[in-house]
């Protein structure tokens, strides 16, 4: 056990030929509020969507509370690499070429070579296959199950159009048998009360304003009692006068100790709410730090450049 909710290890994501994420590793600690900033197209949304597997990573692993959501990426497990046929062959060749080389050095060189040249194939022998399988079996958790613990709020709200506000909030808890219909309704009404929209319980989403939709989307996620909330630019589709009400609600959640990851263009809000800010550039996290460090003393020229444009 460690105190991370989400761990991203060596994540790559390609859309066809387009490489969007090029090796991202990061963790989200319990209680932490992390903001992700960066230019348009830098891969912020893709990274966030990989955290609950709405996007399937091309390489790398995603872990939630020490449970694996993706297949095993053998490149991340040296013990496993060492069991492969390729490793055996390359190690023999390497030691023959470099007589008297230290064992550890040969090992490191071969592993680096295998990773760099992407040499692992399907047919790496039964010991390798078994190790991958065992590791997977020991750690895997069904992603639908995990997603119950990860609330997600989208830029375009994505309320279920065919359901009333109340049904939007009770569908998942009831379908997944986490609550009886009565319990789910009671909880939903409490949450609607909290955002002062209980009079909207029985209307359909099409009749709501953008700000109302987004606040309902947030409490719909809360109705599942998630451990983490992911926000993908929750205010960028809103008319300016509605941004405040949504940010207020997110701020309240932060104050209550909710763990959250928020992709945002609202730099002021990121600075105020976040414990840690990740700056993404060209598919990698190119700088990270506290808001003070990142906004006031950026080290990376790309960060400076980006901030000078948006601040």
């Amino acid at each position, binding site marked *: 056990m460690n105190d991370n909710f989400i761990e991203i290890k060596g994540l790559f994501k390609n859309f066809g030929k387009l490489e969007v994420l090029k090796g991202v590793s990061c963790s989200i600690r319990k209680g932490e509020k992390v903001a992700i900033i960066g230019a348009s197209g830098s891969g912020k949304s893709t990274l966030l969507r990989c955290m609950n597997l709405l996007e399937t990573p091309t390489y790398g692993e995603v872990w939630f509370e020490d449970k694996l959501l993706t297949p095993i990426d053998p490149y991340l497990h040296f013990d496993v690499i060492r069991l492969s046929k390729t490793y055996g062959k390359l190690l023999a060749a390497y030691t023959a070429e470099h007589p008297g080389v230290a064992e550890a050095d040969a090992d490191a060189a071969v592993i680096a070579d295998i990773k760099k040249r992407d040499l692992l194939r399907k047919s790496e022998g039964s010991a390798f296959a078994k190790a991958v399988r065992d590791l997977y079996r020991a750690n895997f958790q069904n992603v639908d*199950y995990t997603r119950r613990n990860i*609330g997600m709020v989208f830029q*375009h709200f994505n309320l279920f*159009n*065919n359901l009333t506000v109340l049904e939007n909030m009770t569908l*998942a808890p009831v379908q997944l048998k986490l609550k009886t219909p009565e319990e789910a309704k009671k909880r939903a009404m409490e949450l609607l009360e909290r955002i002062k929209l209980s009079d909207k319980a029985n209307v*359909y989403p099409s009749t709501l304003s953008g700000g109302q939709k987004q606040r309902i989307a947030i409490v719909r*996620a809360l109705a599942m009692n998630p451990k983490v909330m992911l926000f993908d630019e929750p205010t960028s589709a809103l008319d300016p006068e509605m941004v405040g009400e949504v940010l207020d609600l997110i701020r309240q959640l932060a104050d209550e100790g909710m763990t959250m990851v928020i992709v945002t263009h609202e730099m002021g809000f990121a600075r105020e709410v976040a414990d840690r800010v990740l700056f993404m550039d060209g598919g990698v996290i190119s700088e990270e730090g506290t808001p003070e460090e990142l906004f006031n003393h950026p080290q990376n020229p790309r960060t400076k450049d980006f901030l000078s444009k948006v601040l």
Partner: protein
Amino acid sequence: MSFADKLAYAWELRGLLFESLGISLLIAFSAVIIGFVIGVILAVIRIAPKTNPVIKVLDGFAQTYITVIRGTPTMVQLLIMYSSILVMFKYVNTNLLVPIIAFGINSGAYMAEIIRAGINSVDKGQMEAGRSVGLSWTTTMLKIIIPQAIKVVIPTIFNEIIILVKETSVVSFIALRVGGQQAWDLMGLVSKMANAKPAVYNTFLYIAALIYLTIVMLLTLLQHLIERKLKKNER
């Protein structure tokens, strides 16, 4: 024969007329139900993520089915069904099952494409929202996507139903039996008149046209009622 006489003759045969109308409607509406069920299943298979080999095989089947059915005339399908089933189960051809299954299979291919287009028209964010709260692909499909897709496709589905109701008239080319007795669908009865009593053939043609027109108007009315009801569900 005067026009009044022809009408009187038709009135005398009203029992037969209603019976044939009943047969036409029974074939059409049973086929619509079968077609709709087949259509939903095929559409969902076509749309499902192709992650496992079973889905891939089913998808291949669905594609072939849709291509073959849409690529051959209904009449040919009906006659193939008629002759094949005649061969396979000697007596089954004597009831309405043959045309019902034939038209159901036929309509299924068209419904599949209609429903698939409807599902594709639903915003991708709806599926993502469903998955993000922990619902499975299937549950999200059933509770969120398909209800919204159906609403979009109601006009097109009714179009298909209307075409089907009229197209069942080609069933007059095969001999039907109900309860061991020879029976006719509406057009079958009209064709029979052409031989049995040529003088009233024209009158029966017009009567058949009027009956079809009435059915289609009723269907259109039903469509509008459903559309209005669904719209009301939005406010």
